[in-house]
């Protein structure tokens, strides 16, 4: 038999008092988890769309030149970890993201270089064919098709495209689909060379061991200290995963700060509300505590009873709120956000870390307020209130 003063006895037999508070906590956890996940999803979106930077790095000439200067190329060739350096023509197609249209690079390469790069990212042709030399055709991976809601044979770029650098003077068709979760688009080098005359040629390089790419990138042009690397920032720029993320995180720092303020405010308000609810429930339970105190139950034991009731309720409600958030965010990620170019991790530990202060704040708030009232509890006044 469970002891009559066990917190579980009270919690299971007083649903009208327990459920409203539990419901508030569940909603609060979902709110915080959703806000934090969505804020973090921008970072994840960038990492997803530009994931090809895990496999190769672009070296782009600065505006004064049409191709990477020879001395800069020589520096690349001297790096022992580099496996291959490929010169490619590029153009851009639009992709949909939560912040609007963004240009996505299409690499113009020779068939042999294309096969090498696709092998590197383990992408295979599942539909259609590879682009023919000199023709306005591209092969793209499945996520790009889904993002643009296109199918084989549709035009992916053309003269009527809106947006800054994206588009093509001739309509470019999708002739092949690659099976890969890495966003990649490729065309023929001859097409890019004859069509995008003013677009600078860039170099892209791979390393013999893929995991060495970050080390080489950092050596060539360190993040935040461009001038300290082997490459000259006056002549070239590099597009690496590390500097992409650094730029995104830097530009989103204000938004993260706003999110922290919103989270803190929500947690404070919820803790305050829950503290008030605790006080109301405590007032309703004064006869109970008065009688228990008169019967010889010490204030410390009564306090522990309330603390455990609060801890159990908040922990269970937090767990339910977290599970509910995972399910709802998974649904929203797949059915709402993905189509809008926003990638959301429904199980982002960072987001759930932000919900942890909720049960802690509520428990502390309830403990302090109830302890003050318990200290002043006069059992006789309760018993004599007839």
């Amino acid at each position, binding site marked *: 038999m469970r002891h009559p003063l066990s917190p579980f006895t009270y919690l299971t037999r007083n649903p009208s008092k327990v459920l409203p508070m539990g419901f508030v906590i569940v909603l609060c956890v979902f709110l915080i988890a959703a806000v934090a996940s969505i804020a973090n999803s921008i970072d994840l979106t960038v990492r997803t769309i530009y994931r090809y930077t895990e496999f190769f790095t672009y070296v782009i000439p600065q505006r004064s030149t049409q191709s990477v200067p020879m001395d800069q190329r020589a520096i690349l060739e001297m790096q022992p970890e580099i496996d291959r350096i490929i010169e490619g023509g590029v153009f851009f197609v639009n992709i949909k993201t939560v912040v609007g249209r963004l240009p996505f690079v299409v690499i113009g390469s020779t068939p042999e270089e294309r096969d090498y790069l696709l092998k590197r990212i383990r992408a295979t042709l599942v539909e259609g064919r590879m682009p023919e030399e000199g023709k306005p055709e591209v092969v793209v991976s499945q996520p790009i098709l889904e993002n643009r809601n296109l199918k084989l044979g549709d035009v992916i770029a053309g003269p009527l495209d809106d947006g800054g650098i994206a588009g093509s003077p001739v309509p470019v068709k999708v002739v092949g689909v690659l099976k890969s979760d890495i966003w990649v688009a490729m065309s023929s080098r001859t097409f890019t060379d004859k069509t995008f005359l003013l677009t600078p040629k860039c170099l892209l390089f791979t390393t013999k061991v893929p995991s060495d790419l970050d080390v080489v990138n950092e050596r060539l042009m360190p993040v935040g200290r461009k001038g300290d690397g082997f490459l000259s920032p006056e002549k070239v720029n590099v597009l690496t995963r590390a500097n992409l993320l650094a730029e995104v995180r830097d530009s989103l720092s204000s938004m993260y700060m706003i999110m922290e303020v919103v989270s803190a405010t929500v947690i404070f308000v919820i803790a305050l509300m829950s503290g008030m609810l605790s006080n109301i429930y405590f007032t309703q339970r004064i006869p109970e505590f008065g009688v228990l105190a*008169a019967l010889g139950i010490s204030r410390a034991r009564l306090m522990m009873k309330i603390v455990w009731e609060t801890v159990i309720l908040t922990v269970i409600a937090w767990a339910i709120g977290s599970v509910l958030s995972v399910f709802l965010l998974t649904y929203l990620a797949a059915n709402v956000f993905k189509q809008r170019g926003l990638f959301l991790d429904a199980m982002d530990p960072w987001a759930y870390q932000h919900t942890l202060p909720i049960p802690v704040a509520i428990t502390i708030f309830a403990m302090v307020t109830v302890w003050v009232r318990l200290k002043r509890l006069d059992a006789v006044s309760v018993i004599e209130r007839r």
Partner: protein
Amino acid sequence: MLSCNDICLDYVEATRVTHALKGVSLDFSPNKLHGIMGPSGSGKSSLLYILCGLKSPTAGNVALDGTSITNMSDAACARLRSQKFGFVFQQPFLLNYLTALENILVGINPDELSASVQKAESLLSYLGLDGMGDKYPSMLSGGERQRVAVARALIGNPDIVFADEPTAALDKDNGYKVMSALADWAVDHTVIVVTHDADMLKGADVIHHLIGGCLVDDQPSNVR
């Protein structure tokens, strides 16, 4: 033995002082049913709460077996009440989310719980509440609830049971049932009952009369 010496209790309200108890001294000999009688406002309930350590007197001292309980800490006093005293109030004050059996066991230490369940069932049977252990207070009559409260007072085998107007909210029949249970307990324990109903104290061994906060006299009962 419980005794009190020169107990005074003053209530101060703004500039007015009310003397609720004026130097009451009493010895409560063991194994007896002690009655404290008096009209409303005579200070009998206040005296009871001072005797059991729930209220502090303005002056005077209460001692249990020679040890003063007047200046005990809250925690020590709570421990004393839990281990040595039992209480029956005018209202049963049962917790409405607990069954009758659970209400009886509410003050029991968790490590003594399983050993006390059998005893609680016996007490229910003894008090005429057979088969009502799993009923919630809302399903019991006023008399049944008060008998559950008596069982709650007796479960810990207390040396002294304090009862404050335990029959006030009951009809005569139920009142006698409650008093009979307390009188039985007084055979080998001390029971102190506060009431204004002389009928209910017919079985008392000693009756103390309080009027205006002063002890008037002690009258042995002629019934037992």
